[in-house]
């Protein structure tokens, strides 16, 4: 009998989310979306609760979480950077923009900078191909980003 520490607030919130979907196992993906919205990411202990509430195995929840690239088990940075790797952006050089972000922040894709400020991820087409290459940081979208712009963009957040 292992104990999983989560905290009452979080636990209650999770139970509430699951309940809002009638604890239906077929609503798992919606539950995960809501959870990530609330917690920012979906750590293991949270998946344990969801599994219990929806009456499915934890392995199943984990299988679903790892199948869909939208879900993450690691917290994102305060300013999550996403570089679009859709074709339109790629042919306009988004791979080089990504490399530049990695170089400047010294973290690989999917990880958090030491100060927890930034995380870099790749994104599939956001559908703003007219602005290629596209980078989003949090809610903000940057269009037509050139390698040379990267330092300036980061400066906006480093102050």
């Amino acid at each position, binding site marked *: *009998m*292992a*104990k*999983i*520490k*989560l*905290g*009452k607030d979080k*636990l209650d919130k999770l139970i509430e989310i699951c309940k809002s979907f009638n604890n239906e196992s077929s609503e798992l993906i919606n539950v995960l979306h809501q959870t990530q919205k609330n917690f920012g990411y979906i750590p*293991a*202990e949270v*998946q*344990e*609760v969801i*599994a*219990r509430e929806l009456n*499915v*195995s*934890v*392995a*199943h*929840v*984990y*299988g679903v979480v*790892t*199948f869909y690239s939208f879900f993450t088990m690691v917290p994102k940075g305060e300013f999550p950077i996403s570089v679009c790797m859709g074709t339109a952006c790629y042919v306009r050089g988004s791979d080089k923009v990504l490399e530049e972000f990695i170089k400047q922040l010294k973290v690989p894709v999917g990880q958090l900078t030491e100060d927890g400020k930034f995380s870099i991820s790749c994104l599939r087409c956001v559908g703003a191909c007219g602005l290629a290459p596209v980078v989003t940081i949090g809610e903000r979208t940057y269009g037509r980003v050139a390698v040379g712009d990267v330092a300036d963009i980061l400066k906006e957040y480093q102050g």
Partner: protein
Amino acid sequence: MEQMIKLTIDNKDIEVVQGTTILEAAKIIGVDIPTLCYMHLEDLDIEHNPGGCRICVVEVEGRKNLASSCNTKCVAGMNIKTHSMRVLNARKTVMELILSDHPADCLVCAKSGNCDLQTMANNLGVREIHYKGEQSTYRVDYSPSIIRDMDKCIMCRRCETMCNVVQTVGALSAINRGFETVVSPAFEMNLEKSPCTYCGQCVAVCPTGALTEKDHTNHLIGDLADPNKTVIVQTAPAVRAALGEEFGMVPGILVTGKMVAALRNLGFDRVFDTDFAADLTIMEEGTELLQRLDAFLKGDKKVKLPILTSCCPAWVNFFEHHFPDMKDIPSTARSPQQIFGSIAKTYLANKMGIKREDMTVVSVMPCLAKKYECQRDEFKVDGDPDVNYSITTRELANLIKQANMDFVTLPDEDFDNPLGESTGAGVIFGITGGVIEAAIRTAYEIYTGKTLEKVDFVSFRGMEGVRSAKVDFNGLELNIGIAHGLGNARKLLEEIRDGKSQYHAIEIMACPGGCIGGGGQPLHHGDASIIAKRAAALYREDAGKAIRKSHENPYIIKLYEEFLGKPCGELSHKLLHTHYFDRKDVIE
């Protein structure tokens, strides 16, 4: 009325029932299309046809792509080629792809010679792997019973079906996606931390060396060579009905005598029978049943019915993980393996005049969960386990091979006494329905005081997942439930939880078919009819036994007289009973 449709396979015309797959249709005309991920255990009603491996593809005229024959249904007028050049090239290429992501350590793999992948690669004539590249690498997961080496996984996902659909344990799932996809417990943690019951059904169906049992043969060889150790062995009933298969014998042949001879030959100091412990289990479990029944009928509200059997360690793990709220329902009697160990290290050690710590008790089991069970803390005295090692039927076969024995020609030998004598009731412990049949044979006579005229309870037998039967106890009608496979057990447990259960007693075995279909048995390679043949063999042995009721076993009677006192007495409780734990994770 079933509609018949006509089609052509390899230029042969054939008529099949609508709904027949191409694979099944081909089989009818003697065309054996190769399969890899496909598994159909007909007798157990288990079908797994995800169409993932793509080895079974065939050419269907007019179709753009090749069709996977295992899950494509026949359509009238189909013209199918099962071995055109296009098909052979595709199969070979697909096999090369699989092998390009598989370690090339066949020579030292636990599955070598018994591996579906190896056989198939050979059958397809793969002699070179043209495609090379990154190979998946994972940490090997060692649990007390099962070793997971996912580098060898080919994503057939049979284990997932067994774990989730058949057993409803939910320890495994496919995780990640694309090339990274692999079958794993949640968070890629070890099986030990998952709700795995160690039933071993995943191991039983794994076509490669990805899932194997934890092998204790080397430890055992060491102990056998130690002159200071008295090494005794017990063999479960299901082992003798399957061991011969490992030596090329036809399934369903009992090899009890040869097995005993082989064990003695290996150097065991005493060769005993778990069947003896099974008889003892019946004495305890049967008595407990009657006590609970009696109290229940007298209106004692604290007493709950039905009583559930507890001989199956995977089943015990299952309810500890999934139904901890109901842990007071199963019988508290230990499993025969543990009852044997407990008696061996007390009664027998005393009789033989040796110290407990100088005795090594080995069990040969059809089971992987027994490996875990014998390590449980409650079955240890001052850190010394009652049963030191549990090895599987397959490991025993391997030991026999290592010892250069020509198993098939070994002369029959008998078990040693006192723990080698058993009744027919102990023998049928290995089959679904057997434990409850054995228990009823004894409980009936004790309860009614009458002699049971007909000891064969045919209504308890069979391979249906959930069965029920009624027994007349002198006017008291007892409802008996039987489930094998944990998914079926779950159904009965949910009924109990919902207060809808009508049963007085339920027998549960985790493995489909019971112990004869255990995770430690010789691999059936998809032919589940072998399991029924093993069952028939055990029923034959039962029928041939002079004594067929546990309470009539003279050595059991003597054991109670000399040592234990009475069933469910104080000493029995200490040595032969146990308690259960809540293993569900608590989230705060």
